[in-house]
């Protein structure tokens, strides 16, 4: 009881220190910015003022809404490919021996290097963006799922077998539950990569949505605007991860996260 209380207290103290650290960082930024031209580093108050600018805010929120479409679609496709494939490869010794070298080799290639290719195949607009999101997300998720599927304790499967569970029933009742912590890890990794892929695609293909706002702000030396978009993308990534973690603690309360 006291141990739990002590752990809670240290956790609360760590959160407090984190908050202080963030606040101090913003103060430091304000101080530093006052000595430097606004073109290079605008103070946080300027960035906030930029956000409050109604015209800019409207553009930003519309762009964000439109960016979410390829993000969601690309993320969904990546999961749809990576999860079944990862389970198949992770559960089968022959499949993993056969295809892991190929996967490792492809994973070693920076996905961004495929951009000229994607232009040839998908053009410069929506399909190309979705394709880049998938390319940047799918292999990272796949690696987590393969590791998870391999991690299922053989004893559990033996129990299933001795109780006469069919392969399908074993997958559904044993592999999937055992895999679920990894599934959430995969979701977290994958979502961060998908956000990354979305903004990358908007900058590297035809500049649209958030990418277009960024490009235009860069050309106008509107550093506050650029910073705002970067912050927004960063917050989107953090928010997504927080939601996934929340879902995990709700759905997998039986699983103690280390």
């Amino acid at each position, binding site marked *: 009881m006291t141990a739990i209380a002590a752990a809670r207290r*240290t956790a609360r103290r760590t959160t407090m220190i984190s908050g202080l650290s963030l606040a101090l960082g913003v103060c430091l930024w304000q101080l530093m910015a006052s000595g430097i031209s606004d073109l290079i580093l605008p103070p946080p108050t300027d960035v906030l003022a930029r956000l409050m600018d109604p015209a800019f805010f409207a553009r930003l929120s519309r762009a964000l809404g439109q960016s979410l479409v390829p993000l969601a679609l690309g993320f969904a496709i990546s999961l749809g490919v990576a999860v079944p494939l990862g389970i198949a490869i992770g559960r089968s010794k022959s499949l993993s021996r056969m295809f892991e070298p190929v996967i490792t080799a492809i994973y070693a290639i920076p996905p961004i290097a495929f951009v000229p*290719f994607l232009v040839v195949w998908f053009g410069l607009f929506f399909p190309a963006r979705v394709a880049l999101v998938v390319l940047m997300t799918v292999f990272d998720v796949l690696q987590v799922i393969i590791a998870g599927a391999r991690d299922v304790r053989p004893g559990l499967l033996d129990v299933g077998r001795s109780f006469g569970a069919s392969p399908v029933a074993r997958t559904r009742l044993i592999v999937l539950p055992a895999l679920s912590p990894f599934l959430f890890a995969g979701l977290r990794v994958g979502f961060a990569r998908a956000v990354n892929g979305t903004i990358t695609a908007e900058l590297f293909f035809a500049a649209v949505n958030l990418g277009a706002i960024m490009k235009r702000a860069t050309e106008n030396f509107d550093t506050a605007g650029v910073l705002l978009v970067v912050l927004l993308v960063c917050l989107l990534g953090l928010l997504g991860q927080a939601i996934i973690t929340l879902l995990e603690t709700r759905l997998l309360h039986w699983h103690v996260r280390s």
Partner: protein
Amino acid sequence: MRRAMLPLIGVFLFLLVWQLAGRSLGAAILAPPSIVAFDYLELLRQGDMLRELALSLRQMAIGYLAACVIGMPLGVVMGRSRVADGVFHPWVAMFVVTSTAAQIPLLILFLGTGLWLRITVAFLSTVFYVVLTTYNGARGIAPNQLAVGRSFGAGRLQIFWKIMIPAIYPYLLTAARIGLVHAIRAMVTAELFVIVGYGGLIHQSGLSIETGPLLGLILTLMIVSLLGDLILRGVGRWVAPWYEQQRLVSS
């Protein structure tokens, strides 16, 4: 015997599918491996590819090494001190999700498009992964190992060198390997954005009507990345052959 053949069969199947797809789609859309092989020899003969690669890699290496030198100690400190964890963790968590591509326009405003841009991009997109991996290792040191050290009268320095460093070592190696993947990705991203160096070369051959040379350039990136990983693993085994290496999955 059959088990040893399986990876080869996998590679062969992959090449076969690629060859068939390339044949039916044509070299303008997807050059088959048979054509890429010829184009690759041509790329090697011309010399542009390897020259640009060497220059780009040198700049990446500066950023990457800086990221390791700064990120590893920071990760250890964060893993061992609650206060340092509280101070740095929110920043690390924030920067690690910020995409490299989104940072580049901002960094161009700060640094221009020269040498420092590429070094900084490589550094920034590597360092936080190195920190987090090392941090996980430092946090996970078994308390009873430290307790044994203390009860045998080891000093703080001895505990650091004889218990903590050996316990963290596999994570340092993993951090270096994960970091390298990100550093190479960042290098290509930055160079494709400002169209210089190896990334510039990729952009250029993307404009040509043949996809063979483009695939050749991508192939070289793959070889560099795999080779770098192999070297790091080799060095790791050479320094401390008794360690089982951590898996490359991080979350």
